[in-house]
């Protein structure tokens, strides 16, 4: 127990990194996922095809592989750099690329299933008053589609919080890797440390799940 109290600033720092990873890659994958969904329902076969290939490839690849590719492939071999002197900042952004690339494929599929729940008449009415495809999507379909998929998007965000731990594969000092380091430092306090970190994840995800549930109920489209 003392180990957890002594190391509290370190633990909180690790969770702060987890939160940063989640928020940044969450925002990027939400935007990119919606763009992908729009591509996959567009009238242009090129965009549909590109979207389908992207989503199927990324969704069926392990996240660890994607992050290792970003960290070692892009970072070390291709020499992609975000910061010249701060290596940890570099791997932070490389893992964000990986997390966003992976999560956006799932966001795309969730949003697309939301688009399928919007009644036919909505799109027909939008076309009847002369809206173009992009206007129909932006003003009529997507606002309704996104509202119906708040709950699944919430569980994706929940999964993303846990998935940020995979960034440990390229040495980002988020919660899981920090926990392993503390295990090494305090060999006698493994169980308290584990419980502390597990509690940290519950604290992160629980309010989020409650919020997603409430939002889903409040924003539900009454039909």
């Amino acid at each position, binding site marked *: 127990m003392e180990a957890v109290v002594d190391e509290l600033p370190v633990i909180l720092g690790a969770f702060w990194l987890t939160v940063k990873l989640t928020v940044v890659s969450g925002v990027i994958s939400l935007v990119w996922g919606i763009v992908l969904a729009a591509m996959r329902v567009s009238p242009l076969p090129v965009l549909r095809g590109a979207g389908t290939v992207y989503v199927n*490839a990324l969704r069926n*690849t392990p996240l660890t592989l994607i992050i290792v590719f970003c960290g070692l492939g892009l970072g070390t071999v291709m020499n992609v750099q975000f910061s010249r002197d701060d290596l940890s900042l570099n791997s932070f952004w490389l893992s964000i690329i990986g997390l966003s690339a992976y999560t956006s494929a799932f966001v795309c599929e969730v949003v697309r299933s939301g688009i399928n729940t919007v009644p036919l008449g909505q799109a027909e009415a939008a076309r009847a008053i002369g809206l173009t495809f992009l206007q129909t999507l932006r003003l009529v379909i997507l606002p309704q589609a996104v509202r119906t998929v708040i709950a699944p998007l919430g569980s994706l965000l929940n999964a993303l919080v846990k998935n940020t731990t995979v960034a*440990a594969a390229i040495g980002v000092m988020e919660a899981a890797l920090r926990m392993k380091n503390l295990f090494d430092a305090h060999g006698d306090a493994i169980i308290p440390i584990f419980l502390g970190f597990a509690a940290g994840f519950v604290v992160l995800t629980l309010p989020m799940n409650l919020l997603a549930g409430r939002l889903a109920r409040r924003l539900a489209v009454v039909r």
Partner: protein
Amino acid sequence: MTGASVLYDVPGPRTRLRNNVLTLAFAVVLLLAAYFVWTKFEEKGQWKGELWQPFLRADTWTELILPGLVNTLTAAALAAVLALLFGAVFGIARLSDHRWVRVPAAVVVEAFRAVPVLMLIFFAQYGGSLAGLVVTEFAAVVFGLTVYNGSVLAEIVRAGILAVPRGQAEAGSAIGLRKNQVMRLILLPQAVTAMMPAIVSQLVVLLKDTALGFVVAYADLLNAGARVVPANYANLIPSVIVIAAIYIVINLALGYLATWLERRSRRSRKVAADPAAAEMAGGEVPLVR
């Protein structure tokens, strides 16, 4: 594309022209993007023949890659069996009439679902050696995958059992079956059939998560692709691309199995439970196919 045709009319001559122009424009943009990536890789010499040559030789496959694949599949298969057992036991336990069974089962399932798999793997390694056990990387990976995916499967099983119409259990009791017989002979078979697609897609998640073994240096497929092969031929990017293709093919095949099972269960069952509902209740990743 079900949603697509709803969103736009059958194009007239002007729209067809515009669509053709846009198709051309986007094709050019995509090709330019691909060309950009290609030249960047070219600059670093990633398309050089000698980096790709090893994949044409049999010994690369038999000596380096296939053992990794076998390890991945072994870990996935063992973890899948254990997770299914875990899921069945805890899913049923959560529905028990006895409070002292129901509450601890709920605590276990909710706790393991909230913790990332990687943390469970680390905990198995360090906690096991604390208890005086020798925990191999294999055991740690299987432990982490089992308790996490088992908890998710428990939720799927529970949702499936709850989705079986009440009359089934009542009819079972009416003909004099015991509680355990009702569960074993009536509810569980129907629940598992209805939940099959959700179960298979969770097993895909499990297979993908075996790659976490890379972090603790378990000699799996990813380890073969990102450590072993590049250590021999200094070809990290080609090798990771080849490994990714193997993962994609296996997971796509399992995904098609899930879709096929879903279609089959929809055809054959009068009262099929809604897999989407179970997915919301338990699955980490919504099944959208």
